[in-house]
C-alpha cells in the first residue's frame, strides 16, 4: 500500500517535471539558432526562407506552437527531426542501444576495478599500491574525459595499432537486442570508449568505497568481530563490506545521470553512434524537435532512475521511510 501510494505520488511528480522540462526546452529553442539556416543553402533568399518558415509553422506565436507540440506530445509524438526526417523519438530509440552498451561497458569496468581497489585501499591504507591507486585516482578525476579519449586513441590505435580508432563495429541481434556485445568486432570497438567513460567515474567510486569502508572498520561491531577472533576475510568481506555498499548504491544511481552527460563527450570523440553524439549534432544543426525530445527522454531517465534508487534504498535499509509513509 505504501509502495503504491509512493509510486503514484512519484508518477505525478514525474509528469509535472516532464511538463516543466518540455516548457523550458521549448522556450529556449528560439535561442538555439535558426533551423532554416541549416536546411537551406547560403544563397536562398530571406523571402524564400520566410515562406518555408511559414509552412513549417515556425512563425506562429509561442503558445500556439507550444500548444501544438503538447497536443501531439501527449499522444507520444514529439515531432519530426529536421535532419533525419523521421519522428524524433524513433531516432533517439534507434541510437539508445549504442549508448546503453557504452554505459553498461563502463559500469562493468567500474565495478570490476573500483570495488577491489577501493576495498584494498581501505584494508591496507599504508601499502605503496594503495598510495599508487589513490595518487592515480587524483589524476583520473582531474583529466577531462575527451583528453583521456584522445590519448587512448593515439596510444592504442595509432601508435600500437591494437584497437580500432572510432565507431561501434559490427553488431548482432540477440533476443531482440542489436548490440556489439555479441560480436568480437563489436567488443573490441567497445574497449576504449568504455574505459574513457569509466575513467571519469572510477576515481570517485574508489574513493567513496575506501572512505566508507574505513569508517565502518572503525565501528564498534567490527571491533567486536575482531575481538571474537573471526577470520580477517570474514570481518572484511562479510561484516564490513556489506554495509559499505549502502551509500555506494545511492551514489551509483544518481551517477547514472552524470554518466549520460559524459556519454556526449565520449561519443563525439569516438564517433560512437549513440544518443549523446546525436544530441551534440542536433544542437549544431539546430534540429529543435530532436533537441527537445532528447531533453525529455533524458529527463525521464533521471526521474526513473531516481525513483528506482529510492525504492531500492528503502529495501536495503529499512530504517529509511518513504515520503508519505506512516511511521
Amino acid at each position, binding site marked *: 500500500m505504501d509502495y503504491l501510494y509512493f509510486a503514484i505520488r512519484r508518477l505525478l511528480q514525474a509528469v509535472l517535471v516532464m511538463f516543466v522540462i518540455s516548457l523550458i526546452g521549448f522556450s529556449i529553442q528560439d535561442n538555439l539558432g535558426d533551423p532554416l539556416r541549416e536546411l537551406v543553402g547560403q544563397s536562398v533568399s530571406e523571402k524564400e526562407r520566410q515562406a*518555408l518558415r511559414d509552412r513549417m509553422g515556425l512563425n506562429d506565436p509561442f503558445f500556439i506552437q507550444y500548444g501544438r507540440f503538447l497536443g501531439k506530445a501527449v499522444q507520444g509524438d514529439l515531432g519530426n527531426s529536421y535532419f533525419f526526417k523521421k519522428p524524433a523519438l524513433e531516432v533517439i530509440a534507434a541510437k539508445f542501444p549504442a549508448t546503453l552498451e557504452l554505459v553498461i561497458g563502463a559500469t562493468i569496468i567500474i565495478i570490476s576495478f573500483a570495488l577491489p581497489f577501493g576495498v584494498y585501499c581501505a584494508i591496507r591504507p599504508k601499502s605503496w599500491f594503495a598510495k599508487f591507486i589513490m595518487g592515480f585516482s587524483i589524476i583520473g578525476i582531474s583529466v577531462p574525459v575527451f583528453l583521456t579519449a584522445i590519448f587512448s586513441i593515439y596510444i592504442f590505435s595509432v601508435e600500437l595499432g591494437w584497437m580500432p580508432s*572510432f565507431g561501434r563495429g559490427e553488431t548482432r541481434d540477440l533476443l531482440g537486442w542489436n548490440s556489439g556485445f555479441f560480436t568480437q568486432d563489436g567488443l573490441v570497438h567497445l574497449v576504449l570508449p568504455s574505459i574513457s567513460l569509466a575513467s571519469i567515474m572510477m576515481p570517485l567510486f574508489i574513493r567513496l568505497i575506501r572512505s566508507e569502508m574505513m569508517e565502518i572498520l572503525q565501528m564498534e561491531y567490527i571491533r567486536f568481530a575482531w575481538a571474537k577472533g573471526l577470520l580477517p576475510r570474514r570481518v572484511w568481506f562479510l561484516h564490513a563490506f556489506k554495509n559499505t555498499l549502502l551509500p555506494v548504491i545511492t551514489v551509483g544511481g544518481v551517477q547514472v545521470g552524470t554518466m549520460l552527460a559524459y556519454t556526449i563527450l565520449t561519443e563525439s570523440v569516438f564517433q560512437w553512434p549513440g544518443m549523446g553524439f546525436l544530441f551534440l549534432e542536433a544542437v549544431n544543426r539546430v534540429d529543435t524537435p530532436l533537441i527537445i525530445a532528447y531533453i525529455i527522454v533524458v529527463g525521464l531517465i533521471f526521474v526513473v532512475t531516481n525513483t528506482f534508487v529510492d525504492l531500492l534504498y528503502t529495501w536495503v535499509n529499512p530504517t529509511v521511510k518513504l515520503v508519505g509513509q506512516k511511521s
Partner: protein
Amino acid sequence: MRKIFTAAAVAALCLGVSAGVQAKTLKMAYDADPVSLDPHEQLSGGTLQLSHMNFDPLVRWTKDLGFEPRLAESWERIDEKTMRFKLRKGVKFHSGNDLTSLDIVWTFDRLKKSPDFKGLFAPFESMRVVDPLTVDLVTAEPYPLVLHQATYIFAMDSNFYTGFDSKGKSKAAIVKHGDAFAATNVSGTGPYIITSREQGVKVTFKRFEGYWDKKSPGNVTDIIMTPIKEGPTRVAALLSGDVDFIAPVPPTDMDRIEKNANTNLVTMGGTRIITFQLNQNRIKQFKDKRVRQAIVHAINNDGIVQKIMKGFATAAAQQGPKGYAGFVSELSPRYDLKKAKELMKEAGLEGGFSVTMMAPNNRYVNDAKIAEAVASMLSKINIKVDLRTMPKAQYWPEFDKRAADIMMIGWHSDTEDSANFSEFLTMTPSEETGYGQYNSGNYSNAKIDELILKSQSMTDPVERSKVLQNVETILYDEAAFVPLHWQNLAWAARKGVNIESVVNVMNFPYLGDLVID
C-alpha cells in the same frame, strides 16, 4: 526461358568473379554525411560531393577550372541566348532506363522548383527537347555562365522519380523536412549505387556495373563512407589505417600526416574568401573611405595566415581567387600600420572610436581566433572593438539582423565565377532585386551595381573579364570590405590511394575515377 536465365546468371556470376579479383574497397571519412539523397534538396558541398558519386552532370569542372564533357558529349552556342547540348549515346540509369533528353529537361524543370537551386537557375528561361539526344538550354538574356550552371544539371531518372510512393505522395516532390521518396531513393547515371545507408553512421556504395564511362581509370568497386565529426579522431582513423581517405584535414595535424611514411597530404588554394564587413548604416565613420582604408591597412592579414592559419590559407586583397574571371594579380595585401594611422589622422579620427564586432566560432577555420586578432590589430589605430563570438547556429540570425558594426562573412561562389561575390556581398542591398543579401556593411556604389549587371549578359569572356577586374579594383581602392584570406583545402589518404588526380578546388572529388594501387 529458364535456360536463358541460368545462362545469364552464370554470366553474371563470372563477371562478378572476374571483377572480384581486383576488387578495391575505399574506406573514407568526411566530417559529415550527406543530409539527403535528393540532389536538389540542399545546395551544399555535401550534396554536390554525393551527386558526383550517384549522378553525372552534363559537363564538369576540370582541375584548371575548364569544362569537360560528361553526359553532354558536345555543346555549341546556336544563338546568343541558346546553347545546344548533344547527349552521350548508350548511357543507362541505375534502374536500367536509358538516358534521353526527356530526363535532362525533367531534371532542369525540377531544379527550377527547388528552393535552393532556383536562384542559380533564374537566368534560364527554359530547356527544350530537340531530339532524343539533343536539348536546347535557353536563357532570357545573353548569359555568360551557361556551362558553369550546366555543372549543376545532374541527370535524374525521370521514369524512376515519376508517380506516387507507398504513402501516396509524388515521388518527385522536394521536401525540406519530412519524408520524401527522392530523399531516400536514387537512380542516377553515376559510377556508384548506394547499397546501404544508416544516417550519421555509414553509407556503403557499390560500383555501377552498367556505368557508361568505360574509359574511366577508376578501379574502386566498393566505398564505405563513415562520417567522423571530430578532427583529431578523423586523423587518428587515417593514421591507424582504419580508413583510407579523409577530408577535411585539421591544419594542426597536417605536419604529422605529411611526415608519416604511410600517408599522403594533398592541399590546394581554396576559393572561399573570409572577410569583415563595415556597417555604414550603424557607424557613420565607416562612410568615410579613409577610415575604411585605414582599417584595411591596419590589419595584417598575411600575419594572420602565417600565425593563426599556420600557412594554410592565401592572404587576399580582393573577392575572387586566382583563376577567376575578375582576378587582378596586381592587387596585394596592404598591411601598413603607419599609413593606417595617417589615414585616421586625415579623417580627423586620431582618437579613434568604439565599435561592436561579431563572428562565428565554428563556421570557418579558426574564425574566432581571427576575429580576436583583428580586434587587437584595430586597437592599434584606436578603434576599440567589443567582440562577441558565437556558434554559427546563433550567428546567422544575428547576421540577418545586422546586429554588430563589424561582421565576419565567408563566401564561396556557387557559380565559381567572380560576379557571384559582388551579387551577394558588395552590391547595393535591396529586397526587390535580391542583390546584396549578405552585404551587412551596406556598402553601395552605383558603378559596381552597373558593372555587375552588365557582366551578367556579356558572352565575350575577355571583355567580361575586364569588367569584373574593374569591379575588383574599385572595391580595392574604395576599401569596400576587409579582405582576409582564402581558406585552403586539404585531403589526406593512405599511400597507394591516388587522390591527387581526383580532388579539385570545388572540393568534390571525382571518386569514380579514383585509382587504388
